[in-house]
């Protein structure tokens, strides 16, 4: 059953990434150099709408949403900085790079091979990285902070930074992201 869901959900995710043009490096180049904000709009709208929907469902049917939050240590931010550099160089990311294989893009083959090498290098350097300040928590004593209340993982609610009902925080934050998706212009710079 789980494998069937993996095929259906993975297939749907790859299908949608392709249909919105996210597997096309041209669209990602234009996204990052702000010369076509289409994918910014897709991302902002998707995140905002998913957020509001999730927290609404979570309020009505507690336990129905399978939350999974990653810990907030400084390495997440540094990892993001490194990721951004590579994102610009390759104009692909792990999900879009994998899906781009499905439309026969040759550069995506090089991207995925590079990704396997990068992961290997990380595995080799992990022991050393683990001793650095990168693994210090951003908020002392709070490994997995969230903004909105009601995020329950394995029977424990994660500490929320905003003390409002979870659905309201999601509505305000998610609503702002959706509004931004609508008001952003088509592009900020020329190609």
């Amino acid at each position: 059953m789980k494998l069937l869901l993996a095929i259906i959900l993975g297939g749907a995710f790859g299908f949608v990434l392709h249909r919105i043009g996210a597997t096309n490096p041209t669209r990602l180049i234009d996204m990052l150099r702000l010369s076509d904000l289409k994918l910014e709009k897709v991302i902002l709208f998707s995140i905002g709408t998913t957020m509001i929907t999730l927290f609404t469902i979570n309020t009505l049917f507690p336990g129905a949403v399978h939350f999974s939050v990653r810990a907030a240590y400084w390495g997440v931010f540094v990892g993001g900085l490194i990721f951004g550099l590579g994102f610009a160089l390759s104009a692909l990311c792990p999900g879009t790079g994998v899906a781009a294989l499905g439309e026969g893009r040759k550069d995506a083959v090089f991207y995925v091979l590079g990704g396997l090498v990068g992961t290997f290098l990380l595995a080799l350097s992990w022991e050393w990285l683990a001793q650095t300040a990168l693994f210090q928590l951003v908020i002392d004593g709070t490994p997995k902070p969230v903004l909105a209340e009601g995020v329950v993982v394995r029977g424990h609610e994660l500490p929320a930074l905003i003390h409002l009902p979870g659905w309201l925080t999601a509505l305000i934050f998610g609503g702002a992201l959706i509004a931004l998706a609508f008001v952003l212009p088509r592009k900020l710079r020329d190609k």
Partner: protein
Amino acid sequence: MYPKGEWDWLKGGLAMVAVAIAAFLLVKPLGVSTQFAVVDTMIWKTIDPEIVQKKEVNGKEVLTSPNAYINKSHAAYARAAENPLNYGLIFVLAMIGGAFLSVLTGGPKPSKEERRVPEGFQRYFGHKPWLRYALAFVGGIVTLYGARLAGGCTSGHMISGISQTAVSSLLFAAGVFITAIPTAIWLYRKRGGNNQ
């Protein structure tokens, strides 16, 4: 302006929401980059079988690894690598099939040339397939190093993580755009005499 079959942002956004919500309700949030670690472990153990070891602990057989990364979270990557038919890996492999299905059913169909050097790349660098492949390869190394350090990528951190209002994912997204936008603006610029 967009290839035939490509959806506009609102339609695409709604479709993305449907997939993300289905994943949250039925199994777990969307995520991709973890599977690079799983596939690496699979390749690694065919070259060096010692990288995944079986040990008896209190009468139960558990996996361990001499590599600290593979060994973390009770050797989660080793466990997935020992059992390749697991949800996460099948999910990522199915993504390839999903994109292929989209091409077959009226989605954008890149030309042979586009599949080698994307149009947006040619705009700034001209027709240089090997430069494109090299940048894709190096970018692959760098993005996955960063994603695995951060514990997630655009799928796991941005779409799934920010939707849950996770502070970690907001930090990741901030980091990504701080470097990605200036680098892209600098890298993809008109070069004198370099363009057709």
